[in-house]
């Protein structure tokens, strides 16, 4: 439904604000999209919001409080200075400050209460017709299950993101029985979203296929390019990283989990060592936290005398150290069994490195013909490829030259531009009116819900009230469909109210003339809201003996908005 006010684009940054662990790709996406979309659309038209108390409210970063160097260092320990933590650092800083003042030894307190700050009573929040873009860890947040209701009741227009369907397609690589939970999540996403951003064509195909299988609505999808997050350089480089990079090494950047397939690299290295190449093998460096289901693999690596000392695992690598490792790597590998995108391949290419990867999932979309692809299940094939590149460094150089010549790093501005274009596209169509079905959406004291309709039972009182939905300021027309039987002797009263029924915006009585046809427009009400209301009600009061059935109500912007008065036009069907 068209509205008088200009739509605002909101970016849900709940994930970033609450994030306090090492950054993951999704946090980077949320943060980068927020930053670049605000640049593209302007901070007035593109705002940040968080989920709080079962609603979205504007997120305003708390003003930087003067902090001691000691406190800064403490925050640095929790959240390194990185763009990924721009939103969360001030929050943690406040928590630590409060802890410092409240948890004195005398008070013996071991916890403090810090709430997400908002900008007070006048805070803004998404209104009918606004877009809400949500690209965070939405499956871990309860707000996703509210999207459909918020879209229906408050008219919010959700644009969400599908990163991959790995928990559904490959639940064996995930913790616990996630397939069912994520299947339900994607269904919720589809029902609640107007459009879904997919991070690759592969993900788009997977998502569309899943929707088809489940019968869920496949929403409009667009593929967004993820920026190649080339890690920052210039920070301190630790001794271990420094020492490693003095000799050639092969780099694999990824959380250590079964799907990423570190195992095939270990087996390939085992085979190469058995071929007698131990002395010529560069170190194989795994950069990433160990995840679920790899303890036996890590134990094998630890105990295997054949590969002893050849495979190195690095945790807690800073962005600058990662940059350093990329720059000094002999080449990079990525044997994953499936990916929704494959950011490390893009990062490596953006750094001009040669890459050997599997061709599973979306990886060919990232690497195109610049990557050497190898079967992820075939340890012998990996051993052969690694041996070939190790023994022929000129081939690595050739690959690097091709990468430097042809690879065009993806920029976050492109991501923002695609999303902005999508919003423009969605905004261009005429929005449908708000449609209410009294039988489902409204309450009654003296009627009976009969499917979508509300039917008077013959008793006097409130036949219909509700639905307590929100509506922005403006002038509107409410058309009410139904049937007023000629048994009805007394008039029927309609009014439009808000503020728990205390504020009446319009009131009108209707007197029946004759038995009308089924499902005809019974009455048209015009009303003006001076400000946004969050509990709009349309009420219908009947006298005893009324034979009234309400079938449908549509509210849209009044085409006669330029008329000076908000007069009521009565159109009784049989009159």
């Amino acid at each position, binding site marked *: 439904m068209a509205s008088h006010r200009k739509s605002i684009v909101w970016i849900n940054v709940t994930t970033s604000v609450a994030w306090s662990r090492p950054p993951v790709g999704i946090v980077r996406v949320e943060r980068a999209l927020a930053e670049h979309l605000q640049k593209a659309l302007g901070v007035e038209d593109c705002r940040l919001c968080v989920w709080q108390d079962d609603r979205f409210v504007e997120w305003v970063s708390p003003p930087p409080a003067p902090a001691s160097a000691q406190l800064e260092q403490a925050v640095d320990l929790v959240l390194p200075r990185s763009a990924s933590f721009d939103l969360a650092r001030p929050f943690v800083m406040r928590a630590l400050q409060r802890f410092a003042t409240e948890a004195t030894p005398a008070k013996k307190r071991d916890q403090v209460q810090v709430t997400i700050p908002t900008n007070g009573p006048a805070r803004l929040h998404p209104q009918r017709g606004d877009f809400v873009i949500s690209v965070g860890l939405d499956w871990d947040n309860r707000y996703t299950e509210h999207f459909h209701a918020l879209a229906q009741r408050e008219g919010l227009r959700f644009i969400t993101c599908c990163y991959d369907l790995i928990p559904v397609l490959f639940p064996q690589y995930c913790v616990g029985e996630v397939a069912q939970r994520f299947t339900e999540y994607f269904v919720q996403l589809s*029902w609640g979203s107007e459009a879904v951003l997919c991070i690759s064509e592969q993900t788009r195909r997977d998502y569309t296929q899943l929707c088809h299988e489940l019968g869920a609505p496949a929403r409009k999808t667009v593929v967004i390019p993820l920026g190649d997050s080339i890690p920052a350089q210039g920070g301190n480089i630790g001794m271990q990283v420094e020492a490693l990079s003095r000799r050639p090494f092969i780099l694999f950047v990824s959380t250590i989990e079964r799907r990423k397939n570190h195992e095939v690299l270990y087996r390939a290295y085992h085979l190469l060592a058995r071929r007698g190449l131990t002395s010529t093998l560069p170190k194989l460096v795994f950069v990433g936290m160990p995840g679920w289901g790899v303890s036996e693999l890590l134990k094998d690596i630890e105990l295997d005398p054949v590969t002893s000392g050849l495979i190195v695992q690095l945790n807690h690598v800073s962005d600058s150290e990662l940059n350093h490792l990329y720059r000094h790597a002999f080449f990079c590998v990525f044997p994953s069994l499936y990916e929704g995108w494959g950011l490390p391949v893009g990062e490596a290419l953006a750094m001009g490195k040669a890459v050997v990867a599997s061709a599973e999932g979306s990886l060919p979309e990232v690497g195109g013909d610049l990557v050497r692809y190898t079967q992820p299940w075939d340890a012998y094939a990996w051993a052969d490829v690694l041996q070939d590149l190790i023994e022929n460094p000129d081939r690595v150089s050739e690959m690097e030259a091709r990468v430097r010549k042809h690879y065009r790093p993806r920029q976050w501005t492109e991501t923002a531009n695609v999303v902005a274009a999508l919003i423009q596209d969605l905004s261009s169509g005429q929005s449908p009116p708000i449609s209410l079905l009294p039988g489902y959406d409204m309450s009654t004291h003296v009627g009976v819900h009969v499917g*979508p309709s509300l039917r008077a039972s013959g008793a006097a009182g409130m036949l219909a009230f509700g639905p307590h939905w929100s509506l922005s300021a403006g002038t509107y027309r409410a058309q009410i469909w139904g049937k007023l039987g000629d048994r009805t002797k007394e008039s029927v009263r309609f009014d439009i109210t808000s503020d728990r029924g205390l504020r009446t915006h319009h009131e009108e009585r209707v007197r029946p003339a004759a038995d009308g046809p089924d499902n005809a427009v019974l009455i048209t009400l015009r009303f003006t809201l001076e400000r946004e209301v969050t509990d709009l009600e349309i009420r219908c009061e009947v006298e005893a003996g009324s034979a009234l059935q309400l079938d449908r109500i549509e509210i849209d912007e009044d085409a006669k908005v330029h008329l000076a008065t908000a007069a009521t036009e009565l159109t009784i069907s049989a009159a």
Partner: protein
Amino acid sequence: MKIVTLSTYPIENPRHGGQHRLLNLVRSLQASGHSVSAVGVMGAPHYPPSAGFLPRPPTTEFNHYIPNPLLMDDWALGELMALDDRYFPRLAALIPPDTEVLHIEQPWLFRFARRYVAERRTRPPLLIYGGQNVEHELKLRIVTNYLGEEHAKACAELVLECETDALRHADLVCAVSQEDAVWMQARTKTDVVLAANGANDRSASLDGIRLANKITGHRRFALYSASAHPPNVVGFFDMFGRGVGCFAPNQSLVVAGSAGSAIQGNDRFPKTPGLDRHFIASGEVDDDCLSALLQVAHAIVLPITQGGGTNLKTAEAIWAGHHIVATPLAMRGYEQFIGSLGVSVHSEPAEFRLAVREAMGQPALALTPDERERRRVVLWESTLMPLIKRVNELAD
């Protein structure tokens, strides 16, 4: 004519389709001037006592005829009644001696009826076999689902022999679908008359609607009305087992009848994504509440993938005038309504679910008076008419 129906279930307060069919047959025959009474033996322990019906014998009695009577108790019950000299006379005593026609619904008691005719000293009654399915095919599918194909084949052989015997010795055969009628006609020398299943012209009270609303939570819902008959459960999971993404978060799938608890108790229920969010089992409801559920439903689903005959729930759905999403099997006997306003038929589960979503997203179906009139043929008064006419001819 004096007519007695023989069945393994009573007809008072009907719950499942077979009961509805027989009750309506009795009423239609009575309306046509015949004197009709229902007699039989309870085939299941949950039926309430009813005049003219023997209580269900203990299951141990069935072991004389089949080592494992699971899912074969209907057949074994028939054998017991026909062959056991303790039970035969008790059932025979319930049949008035001046009975002129015995209508045996389903083949189970037909062997009993043959013995009854053979042993009766006065003029023997004519035998009508009322076949609701090609029973041995249905038995094969049901038993295969639970006990494996090898065991199922042996069971199906016994049932085939039973129904072939009925077809061979009946004076008149009644089928519920054209497909069944063709199969039966090839195995009998007598006429096979087609009398499809039908629906009642229901109307719900305001209290019934209030109760239905309480069950459904005032939500838009699709209705599946079914008994716990195993094919009803199998069909449900065939169509919805992959997930119920076809339902919006504020929509429900309401199962009326004993199928609800059978579905909830099935291993696949907790593994079906989203099902527990949308599933409402009303349980077995009284006729007024069922009428109300049929009235306020937005759509009716008929996920039938097994079984022969015709599904009287299909007739009910057609008459209810809502959106219908059905399998081709569910539409057997009502093929003329495929393609009718609001009727969507799919055998592929994904297509079925898509059709459910589309139906649930449409405005409520509004039939024109002409369309309503065209659907009148699904009412019992129309569907049973061919059989009633033939019985009247027998009387002449």
